[in-house]
């Protein structure tokens, strides 16, 4: 992708039919977008469609979901930055956290602690989830990726797909295939409180606040601490980092651990939002978070966070805003179509993502 991008800058190519086709796609996408929005606006004026309150809910739900995607996307981006491949098993790292967290939650429910002290219970679940996901990520690195260090990028990529299935079916085998529902949260979690003129459900508020705090924490960790500096050095030039006396293997373990911890936080947020977890829970959010990472520019941490929130918004608002304008029924079920169409469009309009890719020295050369 980089090679062709650089090539396009270097040589003046005669425009061919592919370019013509891409322009048709670009124009077509814009027409569909404008048409759909116009249709929705017309409906709105006519008094049909969702109310203003419902629109605001869609935005808030989108941001909450997006915060979760962003947290998972960070793991994809960090590993890509340091090792240069997409770790497709990362979705399962997220699932592992949510899954093991469920057993803690269930136990707390059994001893009636969940109801008496919900906040502390969720904190315990959160810690379990973080530790589980970080541990799974580190083990996967140690067992599956480290022996492949130095082999072509495609090989760990394919391995990661294998690991992804391995983890899914290991969890299915251990805990069964049924969906496990977290115990119900207390009623006040469904209350709405007014912030900045918005009426936000407490659950969504918690998800957004925790997600934002984790992202800020990660950003500070990577930019301001010693280990973060090592991670950036290893991402830029492994050989040079080793010559500076940085233990590259340990730094890579730290990268996986931190990325896994973010996925673990996302696992608990998922439980707060949707309650149900199963062995397959990691798949779609994993792919969505990967989409978010590409949307923001893979390897770029700010991009991963922003990409996550944007994708959540596209998903939350997009169906109502664009698709409903065509009079399509049941649009909210088409959110995946909107999310992945957004990805395709970003790749056509701006292939390096909205915030640009971050490449290591080897990739730049």
């Amino acid at each position, binding site marked *: 992708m980089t090679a062709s991008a650089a090539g396009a800058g270097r040589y003046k190519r005669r425009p061919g039919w592919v370019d013509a086709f891409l322009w048709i796609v670009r124009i077509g996408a814009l027409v569909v977008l404008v048409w759909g929005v116009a249709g929705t606006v017309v409906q709105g004026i006519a008094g049909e469609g969702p109310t203003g309150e419902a629109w605001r809910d869609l935005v808030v739900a989108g941001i909450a979901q997006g915060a979760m995607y962003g947290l998972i996307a960070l793991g994809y981006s960090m590993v890509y930055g340091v090792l240069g491949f997409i770790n497709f098993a990362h979705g399962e790292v997220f699932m592992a956290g949510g899954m093991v967290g469920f057993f803690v939650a269930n136990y707390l429910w059994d001893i009636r602690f969940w109801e008496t002290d919900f906040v502390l219970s969720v904190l315990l679940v959160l810690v379990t989830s973080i530790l589980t996901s970080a541990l799974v990520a580190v083990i996967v690195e140690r067992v599956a990726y480290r022996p492949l260090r130095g082999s072509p990028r495609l090989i760990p990529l394919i391995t990661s797909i294998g690991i992804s299935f391995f983890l899914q079916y290991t969890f299915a085998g251990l805990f069964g295939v049924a969906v496990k529902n977290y115990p119900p949260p207390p009623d006040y979690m469904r209350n709405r409180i007014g912030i900045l003129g918005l009426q936000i459900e407490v659950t969504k508020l918690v998800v957004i606040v925790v997600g934002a705090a984790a992202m800020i924490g990660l950003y500070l*960790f990577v930019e301001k*601490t*010693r*280990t*973060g*500096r*090592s991670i*950036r*050095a290893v991402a*830029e*030039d492994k*050989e*040079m*980092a*080793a*010559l*500076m*006396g*940085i*233990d*590259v293997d340990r730094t890579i373990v*730290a990268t996986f*651990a931190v990325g896994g911890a973010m996925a673990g936080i996302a696992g608990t947020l998922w439980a707060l939002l949707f309650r149900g977890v199963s062995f397959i829970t990691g798949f779609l959010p994993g792919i969505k978070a990967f989409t978010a990472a590409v949307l923001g520019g893979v390897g770029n941490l700010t991009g991963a966070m922003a990409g996550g929130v944007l994708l959540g918004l596209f998903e939350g608002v997009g169906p109502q805003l664009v698709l409903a304008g065509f009079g399509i029924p049941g649009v909210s079920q088409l959110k995946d179509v909107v999310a992945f169409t957004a990805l395709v469009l970003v790749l056509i309009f701006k292939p390096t993502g909205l915030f640009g890719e*971050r490449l290591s*020295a080897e990739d730049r050369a």
Partner: protein
Amino acid sequence: MAMLEIRGLRKSFGGVQALAGVDLHVDEGEIVSVIGPNGAGKTSFFNVVTGLFLPDRGDILFEGKSIAGLEASEITKAGIARTFQNVRLFPDMTVLENVMVAQHCRTRSGIFRAILRTPFMRREEAEIEERAREILSFFGSRLVGYRFDQPAMSLSYANRRRLEIARAMATRPKLLLLDEPVAGMNPRETAELTGLIRKLRDEQGFTVVVIEHDMGVVRDVSDRVAVLDHGVKIAEGAYEEVSTNAEVIEAYLGRPAGAGR
């Protein structure tokens, strides 16, 4: 006892013998130049000594202990630092961060201390930042002030070379290996850096080995010159001796016409 002692060092890549049995010693406080035509094995020599490549045979003794086969990071910790012919900085990191990251081999705070921000780790961070500023001030006004927070890739070519030396200094080495430090610099910058190489030894106390093509620089800085050709040391001695050595002249210029053996 020599600080660095190399015995019968061999390294080949496929069929090419980059190093075909090199012996060299460097005493503490010396500035030794390694010269030779392109492809003579000079950079391979640095790569093997710093642990980027494993030697095929031979031994490398640093302060009496063998370092052959150690990881690059361990060799750095032992006290050898280097720069590269084609400057290799961390381009997206700032000038100050480039020098701070080089001190990681001398500090101890791990990931948990980093997350918890213990007082120990905060003190250590403050110390390495202070030291980074100090090291950068070695180059006068060129890398200080507003430049601290600029990304390394925004620096001029000559400044990138200086930053690379600063970064090598920050690992607190005893031995500094400089690979063509003045390559691509203009005459004024070259003269300035020549003075700096001497200061690295005289004021900072580093022992220096420098690979250089610029014979003026070699003449001005070297206590001793070693000449490599086709992976073998063909001459060694003071600049005047080496520069008039027939074999050295032949290696650089080829045999005079009609002087066939």
